[in-house]
């Protein structure tokens, strides 16, 4: 081995280096007792919290503060009026229907993409995210023109008495379009990660394909499917752009809750819009908690394995 010129002798002299700045009290306390050497804690967390407060927290709190300025009777009168209740019912039922369609076909698509190879698979895989990428308004007008009585699909459905445009069915069509990627992208990685050894073990113990699927695979994928379903449902509840064109917006019949908020705003009924919005916000926060719980459960399961 050659002797290189490494050693203490030819050092370049102590490099000037500023000492770590003393951290301010509040952040230091927040951070607990683990000061390592990575820099930028105060700057990054400070910016994060400020920005989060200014853009999200303070504006969102406005909804609840504004609602709180209403008396309980006023509030109740708004959120329980027949037109509003009809919109809740419609919104929840079409969202459930849309999410259910997504669960079935999303699972199928995820399965096919995860397990099989076939020509055009990469394009199909990329296409799954179209509803994420396509502006909702574009999806709305495209679906409306497809299912209109003279549209590509509508012309075959109308003669059979199936009316899509300006009916709740149309809303379901739009919502299942919007929610599809949530299910596929939740389920697909889980199917991909299923160990083949587990299936081979099942087979070696005498299970046939169907038994392996129903007893081994489906239970493993189910939490992810439920997560995807809930995500699709939550997204559907608040959806506006893709629905507004196809629904026809008839009060009591095809008026979803977000639409109702917009029409209240257009009539300058800000308190009414806000009260309804607060009900929607609370229900979506509850769903968010459910989703977080599901995902935490999913992670817990993963660690056990």
């Amino acid at each position, binding site marked *: *081995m*050659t002797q290189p010129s490494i*050693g*203490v002798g030819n050092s370049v002299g102590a490099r000037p*280096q500023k000492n770590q700045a003393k951290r301010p009290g509040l952040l230091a306390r927040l951070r607990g*007792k*683990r*000061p*390592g*050497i990575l820099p930028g804690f105060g700057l990054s967390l400070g910016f994060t919290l400020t920005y989060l407060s200014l853009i999200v927290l303070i504006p969102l709190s406005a909804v609840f503060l504004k609602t709180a300025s209403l008396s309980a009777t006023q509030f109740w009168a708004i959120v329980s009026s027949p037109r509003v209740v009809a919109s809740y019912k419609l919104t929840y039922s079409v969202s459930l229907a849309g999410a259910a369609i997504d669960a079935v076909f999303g699972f199928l698509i995820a399965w096919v993409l995860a397990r099989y190879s076939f020509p055009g698979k990469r394009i199909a895989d990329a296409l799954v995210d179209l509803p994420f990428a396509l502006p909702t308004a574009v999806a709305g007008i495209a679906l409306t023109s497809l299912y209109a009585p003279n549209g590509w699909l509508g012309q075959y459905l109308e003669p059979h008495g199936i009316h899509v445009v300006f009916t709740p069915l149309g809303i379901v069509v739009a919502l299942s379009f919007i929610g599809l990627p949530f299910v596929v992208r939740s389920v697909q990685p889980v199917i991909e990660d299923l160990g083949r050894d587990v299936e081979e073990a099942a087979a070696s113990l005498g299970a046939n394909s169907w038994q392996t699927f129903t007893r081994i695979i489906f239970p493993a994928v189910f939490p992810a499917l439920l997560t995807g379903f809930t995500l699709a449902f939550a997204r559907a509840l608040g959806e506006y752009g893709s629905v507004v064109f196809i629904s026809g917006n008839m009060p009591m019949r095809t008026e979803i809750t977000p639409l109702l908020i917009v029409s209240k705003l257009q009539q300058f009924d800000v308190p009414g819009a806000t009260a309804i919005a607060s009900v929607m916000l609370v229900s979506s926060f509850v769903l968010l908690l459910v989703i977080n719980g599901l995902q935490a459960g999913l992670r817990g399961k993963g660690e056990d394995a």
Partner: protein
Amino acid sequence: MSIEVRNITKRFGAFTAVDDVSLQVGGGELLALLGPSGSGKTTLLRMIAGLEFPDSGSILLNNEDATKHDAARRRVGFVFQHYALFRHMTIFENIAFGLRVRPRQHRLSKSDIRDKVMQLLALVQLEKHEKHFPNQLSGGQRQRIALARALAVEPTLLLLDEPFGALDAKVRKELRRWLRRLHDEIHIASVFVTHDQEEALEVADRVAVLNHGKLEQIGTPQEVYDNPANAFVYNFLGNVNLFHGRVDRGRVRISTMDSESQESTPVVDGSTLGYARPYEINISRESGGAATVHARLLHIYGVGPKVKLELQDIETEAMIEAEIERTQFVELELKQGDEVFVSPSNLRRFVEDYSI
């Protein structure tokens, strides 16, 4: 360059990772921090490096207080457990990084940097790989590059966190001998962390054994192996047999063996434990009187120059592991199921009781 650690304590929440540890490393010395996982050895190393800061105590580098200095100011070379090579840079760029980030007035010229990197590549015998990326190298090669990168900044001390932990057994052995030779050449005060006692005993000038954040013993490999300070150290450095016994009016009764109390152990009545390594177990066909254990031979593992025997104390049913020379094994004509008499040639007892 010398390192002195004085009464260092480090807590993470309620957990005390390093508990009042003091030690010194002389210039040119290679010290191993040995301990099981969670013993605080990596935290101690990171505090010496300036990657973590102690809650109390101080760190002196060359007799100068460096407790509050960060890593760059301490001029340490640190080799990370998973090498931490910059994956988007070539091997050349990785090694040159420390030279290039120096303030302009201290920076070497482009050609000097190139010479220096090539010298280091020669030192770690990887000249041909300068244009490769880290993921094109094997684990052992990455390890050597990590070392070259740490040496490029001419550190005054070299710290290595589990340097061979991620390598397979054969490469491990080669690389640690190579590291020993390299250390003898460059002669920088070095500390490395390991949980492998064989590695520590073979490579280091001195070994510091840690457990639950406390320094149990520090000394040359010979010292810690021959004169372990306590049961933990004894246990951690090799396989042991455990004999339960009692101290009764100055006499020690361990298993069925009866002996005078040794001078180093206190004569306090009560239960006691005796320890002996497998090669310190004598086997005979004849009973040696009170100081032997009557045992049955359960299994014979006979591959290699030494024969390993698994025995069971007939009275207490405790398992005993013995290792004897093949010649002796042949002489004794041992067979599975034989009843034999066992006596430890060197039975240790420790003041402080330690449960395995």
